[in-house]
């Protein structure tokens, strides 16, 4: 086939011109001068309405009351005010911990994996996803402390020879958790910061006063020399490749918190990949939710975040929903077929017990809704529809963790030790408080950090060209690196 690659000329025929017009709907084929892109991103940071400050005020109050206040009250009175008690010692705190760790996977997935595979649609929203990882981990990392009850002895987790000459047991999954979350939190924060350097320099050059001083310090004297770009690319590449196995390890280790225990329903060899798939499903859905909100609330964001991005991420959600269903069924079928009495009883209880609605909602939100809706391109490109679908998926994923943890713990080997779990106000309040904390951190960051990696967008726009092939035009991407 003879392929003619040349810039599109005005002499194109009508269908080719229409094709070219259609391509302009894509961000990469709708370039604007760098100066204008900078201005748009800076304006989105600066433009704050009174509604924004009301939201910040309300969220701050909620964080103080629901999270700080209630946690303080629980520390003062003791963890007995929570609903966890014999035989269910792991309740909403651990459910919410697993949920936030899962959410945090999206940043790495969207940014690192799509970067490694050179998926071009990632460019405008990698930072939004990376921020989600950092704040999700910050919210999740509170839970081991909250769950401790006696939080003032948290330092027993830190390896140093204490008065009793005891060290943390490095063969314990709880210590693995500590190591994995620390590693992931530090590396994902750095991974957020590195590609931010050129944008911080851009902000430095366009601001004055305290903002200028802050950006100047954070930009590390960035000028954009060849050596600086080379160094940055090298470091980002190392991070992109190295952080992927770290991401996998984090949620696998979280799953081992359960799987290595001799608890019916938990002792499963498939828990590692099952948790990872669930985390990615939950995380990518959360990215879509956030992108829809950013697009609707931030100035100029509709230029950067377009239906094509929701479309591409929607396809990913559909694929991961299918993968999640596969792992769920695999785990379910083998456990059920094995005929082990405890496991069978738990599985029956999930589907017929007093909290069976949680189990059915989980399946409905995680499987039925995405499968019925996300096959449609039109739905995938409709922001409000994607918002609803992705919020429901995350509700479903929360229910999945609820099913795995308290609903399973209540019916173990000894019938005299069975019990039901009802979360109490402190647990619900603290879980809600961390959600408010996450949103609050995001709101504040949206006014301090350029949420769109402008240089990456501009680089992508320079790499994309429309070329004429026969009687039509097609998109073409050059390898600029």
């Amino acid at each position: 086939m003879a392929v003619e690659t040349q810039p599109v000329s005005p002499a194109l025929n009508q269908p080719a011109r229409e094709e070219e017009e259609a391509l302009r709907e894509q961000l990469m084929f709708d370039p604007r001068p760098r100066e204008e892109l900078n201005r748009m991103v800076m304006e989105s940071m600066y433009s704050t309405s009174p509604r924004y400050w009301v939201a910040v005020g309300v969220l701050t109050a909620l964080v103080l009351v629901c999270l700080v206040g209630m946690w303080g009250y629980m520390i003062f009175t003791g963890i007995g005010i929570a609903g966890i008690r014999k035989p269910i010692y792991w309740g909403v705190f651990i459910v919410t911990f697993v949920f936030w760790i899962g959410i945090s996977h999206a940043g790495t997935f969207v940014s690192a994996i799509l970067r490694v595979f050179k998926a071009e649609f990632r460019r405008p929203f990698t930072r939004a996803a990376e921020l989600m990882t950092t704040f999700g981990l910050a919210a999740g990392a509170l839970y081991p402390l909250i769950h401790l009850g006696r939080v003032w002895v948290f330092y027993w987790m830190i390896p140093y020879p204490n008065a009793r000459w005891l060290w943390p047991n490095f063969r314990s999954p709880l210590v693995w958790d500590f190591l994995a979350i620390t590693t992931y939190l530090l590396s994902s924060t750095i991974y957020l910061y590195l590609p931010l350097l050129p944008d911080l320099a851009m902000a430095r050059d366009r601001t004055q006063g305290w903002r200028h001083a802050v950006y100047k310090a954070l930009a590390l004297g960035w000028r954009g020399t060849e050596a600086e770009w080379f160094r940055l690319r090298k470091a980002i590449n190392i991070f992109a490749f190295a952080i992927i196995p770290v991401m996998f390890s984090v949620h696998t280790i979280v799953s081992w918190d359960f799987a290595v225990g001799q608890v019916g329903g938990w002792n499963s060899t498939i828990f590692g990949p099952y948790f990872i798939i669930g985390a990615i499903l939950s995380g990518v859905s959360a990215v879509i939710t956030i992108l829809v909100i950013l697009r609707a609330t931030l100035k100029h964001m509709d230029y950067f975040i377009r239906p094509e991005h929701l479309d591409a991420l929607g396809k990913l959600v559909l694929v991961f929903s299918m993968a999640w269903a596969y792992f769920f069924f695999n785990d379910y079928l083998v456990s059920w077929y094995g005929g082990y009495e405890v496991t069978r009883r738990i599985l029956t209880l999930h589907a017929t017990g007093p909290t069976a609605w949680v189990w059915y909602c989980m399946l409905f939100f995680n499987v039925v809704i995405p499968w019925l809706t996300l096959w449609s391109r039109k739905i995938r490109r409709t922001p409000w529809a994607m918002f609803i679908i992705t919020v429901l998926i995350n509700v479903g994923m929360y229910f999945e963790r609820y099913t795995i943890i308290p609903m399973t713990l209540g019916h173990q080997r000894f019938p005299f030790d069975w019990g039901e779990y009802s979360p109490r106000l402190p647990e619900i309040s603290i879980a809600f408080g961390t959600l408010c904390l996450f949103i609050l951190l995001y709101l504040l960051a949206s006014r301090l950090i350029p949420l769109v990696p402008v240089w990456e967008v501009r680089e992508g726009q320079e790499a994309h060209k429309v070329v004429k092939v026969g009687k039509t035009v097609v998109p073409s991407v050059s390898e600029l690196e």
Partner: protein
Amino acid sequence: MSRRIIHLALFPEDALDQAAEALETLRGMGITDRDMTVISGTPFSEKMLGRPMAWTRISIIGIAGALMGFLTALFFNFGTPLLYPIRVGGMAYQTLPTSFVVFFELTMLGLLISTFLGVFVEMISPSFGPQGYDPRITDGHIGVLFWAPPELDPRLHEALTGLGAEIIHGAEAKKLWLF
């Protein structure tokens, strides 16, 4: 030798070809690659500009950090049980499978943190190339920064302005670093 002056030839965003040609012109006037730097708001590879490959120690620093992390994990996994023995009936005193987790996490932590420290140290280290900056760089302009003796001024002007550049003499970098 006469005193060298820093010049900055600023090209518009879409004039990458002209910037590459300007570098060639400067070489033709006897200015070496060591005395030139390209600064830009968007990354351009060395090949695009016909420049020698840049060099960094980040990979080596990263590997050294990974090794440090591995050694720390070795100490945690096998050193601490010897220093502070906890004997639990039926459990292996030192075990490989569970140690892999600690090895992996600490090795990766060492790699990633040291990679970042490598970037940080190289960023704040003194640079020996021509220093200079213009805020228009982050607005997409491409800057060719170079040292040249004053006697070359007329020829430089003619050649670079002919390529569409705006010349800024003595483009000393504003204080871009906090300290």
